[in-house]
């Protein structure tokens, strides 16, 4: 039976059956408009996050305390840019151009991960970002690697491999500092005190307040709820913290034998929504940096187009 003869309802049912069977949806397959829109929202937000994420770490490239650390940080930030590029390409398969996505981002319509609205104030923040922020991203992305949309899931498989390196290098920065001088230990602890709670917020609102979760779970774009993933991150991170003698700033963090999970204190959701809605420490600055980069690059992009057109007309004339 040809797809052309099916009604919208039949198509949607067929789509859901495929999802239920665990089939992967590819760009040319029929998909409900809401599925396409939600994926564009999620994937472009993810790409923007990778790009904005270059800023807080880029902030320390020129001051990295050793040449080895400088090289590793450069490589890492370059990876982030590469991830952004890769996910932008993946998102384009859903019928949106990079210009449109960029426009959504620069006008503030599209969001990016709020974690990057926190400042990087000492070198240990490079460790905290690698260990906690990339660690949280890995928990999210390992699951996304099994999501129903082919281009997204494949991008996540590749990106997770690199994120695992980032996670290790971040942890190693902190482990080294925790074995170092008192000043280094203080820096490391300070970084964790500032980044722990915002990292937990990276998993999004609590399940009861997560407006997009229902559909995304049904479509197998998400496979676990925000709270489940957050718990997974906490459970794997606490022993790592103990291992290097760093304290996580939550007095209620405690192993719960009955649940088989760590209990934790309440997340400050007011702060979460403030930062999402533009009232975070670096929101203005990050957006300004990205907008300035775009504006300052306009003459470059214009020149590329002009040069290509000259080349084309030379070819035609020849």
């Amino acid at each position, binding site marked *: 039976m040809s797809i052309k003869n099916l009604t919208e309802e039949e198509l949607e049912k067929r789509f859901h059956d495929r999802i239920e069977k665990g089939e992967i949806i590819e760009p040319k397959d029929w998909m409900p408009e809401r599925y396409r829109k939600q994926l564009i929202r999620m994937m472009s937000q993810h790409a923007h996050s990778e*790009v904005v994420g*270059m*800023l807080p*770490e*880029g902030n320390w*490239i*020129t*001051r*990295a*305390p*050793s*040449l*080895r*650390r*400088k*090289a590793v940080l*450069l*490589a890492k*930030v*370059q990876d982030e*840019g*590469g991830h*952004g*590029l890769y996910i*932008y390409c993946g998102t384009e398969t859903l019928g949106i151009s990079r210009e449109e996505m960029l426009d959504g981002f620069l006008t503030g319509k599209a969001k990016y991960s709020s974690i990057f609205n926190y400042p990087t104030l000492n*070198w240990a923040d490079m460790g905290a970002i690698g260990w906690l922020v990339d660690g949280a991203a890995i928990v999210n992305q390992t699951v996304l690697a099994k999501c129903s949309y082919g281009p997204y899931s494949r991008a996540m498989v590749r990106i997770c491999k690199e994120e695992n390196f980032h996670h290790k290098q971040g942890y190693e*920065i902190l482990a*080294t*500092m925790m*074995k*170092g*001088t008192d*000043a*280094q230990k203080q820096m490391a602890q300070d970084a964790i005190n500032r980044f722990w709670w915002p990292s937990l917020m990276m998993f999004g609102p609590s399940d009861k307040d997560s407006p997009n979760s229902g559909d995304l779970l049904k479509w197998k774009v998400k496979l676990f709820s925000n709270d489940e993933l957050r718990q997974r991150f906490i459970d794997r991170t606490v022993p790592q913290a103990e291992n290097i003698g760093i304290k996580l700033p939550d007095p209620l963090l405690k192993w719960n034998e009955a649940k088989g999970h760590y209990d934790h204190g309440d997340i400050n959701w007011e702060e979460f929504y403030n930062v999402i809605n533009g009232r975070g420490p670096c929101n203005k600055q990050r957006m300004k*940096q*990205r907008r*300035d*980069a775009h504006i*300052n*690059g*306009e*003459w*470059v*992009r*214009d*020149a*590329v187009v*002009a*040069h290509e057109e*000259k080349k084309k007309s030379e070819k035609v004339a020849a």
Partner: protein
Amino acid sequence: MPTFEKMINKNDLVTYCLRIADTSLILGQRLGEWCGHGPILEEDIALTNISLDCIGQARGFYTYAAALEGTGKTEDDLAYLRDEREFQNLLIAEQPNGDFGQTIMRQFLVSAFQYYFFEELKNSKDKTIAALAEKSQKEVSYHLRHSSAWVIRLGDGTDESKKRMEKAIDELWMYTGDMFDMDETDATLIKESIAVDTKKIKQLWENKIREVFAEASLTVPENIFMMSGSREGKHTENLGFILAEMQSLHRAHPGAEW
């Protein structure tokens, strides 16, 4: 016991390696400032990629210099604990990024130099230097290809981009003579077939510049006053600030491991 003559050679050799390392480090440091601010994402990645190559080159030559010195210093001691007057990087490497055009122009002028420089240095009688040069030359070939393509695009793009590239040439040309200056250290090591005689590569460099500028509709300046001084550690005022930023954290915690 090394002979007196060999001792002199060793000091020259250390100086020679430090000069190469300093240029790569300072250029890499400048390029690193671009991170997150490029005109398009692809170029953001390209500039940090070139920066990373530069840092790698610096590490190779510093490590060798430290080993030659034999006093237990590390690559980081050489990068982080020397002062402005001790650095001997080429003056052009420390010039400000300016706009994307100026960064590209600086990269092109330096990469074209490094391309022929490392090509020659591959034949150095010092095997370590030859190996480091070979690795660096591969990377620089890419930097040269990348920056040449951009000089052509921007020179031959719009009126505005052409003006910006002309301004970049105007800003940077006076520092190109310094790349070819030589002193006693060079002379001693050239005699030993260890170092590059920059007189040999100057024409090749000029030809490359002319070829790319011609395609970019840009003019090669004539009779410009040339600054020199890198070999005596006499810098422009830029270097002090680069080092202040780069070395601040390392120097604030003497002896700390990172």
